[in-house]
């Protein structure tokens, strides 16, 4: 019998019983209870299921759980540290960058991924990076502002 699959989610190793080809999204939500990661389309088109995989933003509906073995997964639940929100979460909160907020987890995870790569993004960088994330309520301008504000907190003002 092969070794049972284990994946690291939010800093902790967890055994996975679902079949290895199950999309990571369903393992996170239905098996491990990380329901902050949302199902929006299951087709990699809306970004609601975005998580960090090995530090990079990925659509968890498009990745078999086996591909997460050995690469740490961070979900929205893993951003808050010791009761303190991640600067991107705080910036979304401060900007009121949501209405129904169903897209918010994916927007925040995509933005955290962007800022890891590009700590001082321009407005255009943000638009380009969030182009794959759908917000149906039309809160886009506040989301872009929130990411710009988070970048300032993380990296200081642009020179």
């Amino acid at each position, binding site marked *: 019998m092969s070794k049972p699959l284990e994946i690291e989610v939010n800093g902790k190793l967890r055994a996975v019983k679902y079949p290895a080809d199950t999309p990571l999204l369903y393992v996170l939500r*239905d098996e491990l209870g990380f329901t902050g*990661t949302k199902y929006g389309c*299951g*087709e990699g088109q809306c970004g609601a299921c975005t998580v960090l995989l090995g530090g990079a933003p990925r659509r968890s509906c498009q990745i078999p759980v086996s591909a997460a073995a050995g690469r740490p997964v961070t979900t929205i639940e893993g951003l808050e540290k010791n009761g303190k929100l991640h600067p991107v979460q705080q910036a979304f909160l401060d900007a009121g960058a949501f*209405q*129904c*907020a*169903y897209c*918010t987890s994916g927007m925040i995870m995509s933005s955290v991924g962007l800022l890891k790569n590009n700590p001082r993004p321009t407005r255009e960088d943000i638009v380009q990076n969030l182009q794959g994330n759908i917000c149906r309520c039309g809160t886009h301008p506040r989301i872009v502002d929130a990411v710009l504000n988070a970048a300032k907190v993380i990296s200081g003002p642009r020179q």
Partner: protein
Amino acid sequence: MSRRAAFLPSEPDRFEFSERPIHQFELARRDFFRLLGAGIAIFSVSKDIFAAQETAPQSKSFHKEDLPENISAWLHIGEDGNVTGFTGKAEIGQNIRTSLAQTIADELRVPFESVRMITGDTSLTPFDAGTFGSRSTPSMTPQLRRAACAGRQLLITEAARKWDVPVAGLNAADGKITDPASGRSLRYSELAQGKTLAQVMPAEDPTTPAAQWTIAGKEIPKVNARSFVTGAHQYTPDMTLPGMLHGKVLRPPSFGATVTSYDDSAAKSNPQAILVRDGDFIGAAAPTVHEAAEALSAVKVQWKEVPQISNREIFSYLKQNGVVVPDKPNPVKEGSLSDGYARAKHRLDASYTVEYIAHAPLEPRAAVAQLADGKLTVWTGTQRPFAVRDELAAVFHIPESDVRVIVPDMGSAYGGKHTSDAALEATRLARAAKHPVKVVWTREEEFTWAYFRPAGLIEIKSAIDEAGKLSAWEFDNYHAGLSGIETPYVVANQRAAYFAVPLVLRSGSYRGLAATANHFARETHIDALARLAQIDPLEFRLNNLSNERHRAVLQAAAKSFGWPVKKARAGQGFGLAIGNEKGSYVATCAEIFVDPGSDAVKVVRVVEAFECGAIVNPDGLRNQVVGAIIQGLGGALFEAIEFENGRIGNPHFASYRVPRFRDVPQIEAILLDRKDIIPAGAGETPIMAIAPAIGNAIFDATGKRLNRLPLAPKGAKV
């Protein structure tokens, strides 16, 4: 009622046609206090709750005297001083959990933080027809204010009795009653201590005018916002119950297909998967979604399909099949059209079309159903929890009192979640599985098996006189619906008619209902008339518009936009449009750029002025207004459902384009605060003028008049 009846497609503007259910509030007083603990409860009684919840043109057909006395809102002041407000409305992203709590805090004179709202729960909240028609603010705000006002007066009376002083000198502020003469004060918590005091208050209590609001009118952030940025909030698809199974439904290959043969012998390999066949309903429940899907994929079914028309022939179908509904005569008939045409300097006739579009809420339809001890509890994202309860009771032959529907704060709806589909499916599977079952629709199901904003055809005939005034106006609407059919312009000789058409695709409400189609046609036509008369479109509108609220939004938007704007380069265009519906007013100016090579249309800048009476929460309102502009870009420019023979051709976000970050222009929202006017809703009207403003700007840029929505799915080609 048969099971199928519940699945019948809805009518356009469904709620406007819906039958009025008659329910009495049945929660006994002692049950109420057992549920909430001791304290003071205030019930607001509204005689015309149903009429109040219907949209204006249809409410005329109800006889108010027939309506039962009904509890329409209530609030509870607990022994700990915390206040709970109850409404049958649902939080769908429009921010009522915050704005209604502001209203209660304001009127009851308590800190905002001490108020919480219970929403959309058929066992805890008063009956409500549904969260639609921009009714949450106008129907709930006055009722909760009256309840809070009565609560405040009751607390003053209690304090006066305790102190043995006249009521007149006492003040209520900051959760306390104070006697300025002696300096004494009592907290609400102290006054509520040990009480089980219930008061039904009269419908007309003097409440605080908007000019004196202290908590309402302020930019208070969304109350439970933190739970959304941490992922902690549980929408329906996120819920889990002990022993819960996941359900899937086998969808027919096309609309209206029926089962002719069924063989599930190969599907029974997984003993944990439960299969259900009930007429044309075929579903499975299993420990995981994928097991349920696997079980269904092993079922062999043959279907009988029926031929159906396609989107290519829809508009001729609408024209040929429209009939005037006998009990809905022409909504407008005034003056003499022949007199109007006799005075014509210019005449213009044109027809306009709008395609079917999808709501595509990011949270798909979902429900969790639990049957225990003969009682059914369903958590589901719906705009009509009480209607869902009634359908569940009827379909499953359970007394209404044993059915409870709870709506967790929802991942949006836009008019798309009036029906019970997922709730019925989850319950059918839960009954068979003898376990709780969760059903979450896939995106493809959402795009296919929900319902659509109907397609429509609108024909306008018109004339303007020597002075540039409208002298004749004829407006025929096929299938799009009645909302916003009446012109806001002054025209002595006019006629408007609505022609119903049998449904082609399952159709129903959408943000703004038919008003979006009617405003697109009217405002495009008005622009064309202005051009014909060689009058500036702003001047032409002001010349034909008398309503001061309408003029005010138009002037505010035009001023901030800098109308008329001088063109700086080829391909640039400027357009404007106005709209009014449900007691609020909008004017939208748009700048667009048409790429001379590709004909691609880019919306560059939008200025929109909006007025809905006294503003309850400017931050929430701005979010709604900007959101409506952005959502409206999709229907304006590129959204359209493709269909043929009962199949949807583009049931994915990859093929059904919705607005994304790159589509978003620079947006300025101007909010006019009319403290002298009772607040109206803001969910819909802000979406109504964006499409014609863009279309008129495309004409300004190219000289091409586009009389269709979407305007430019493949660029600005005629």
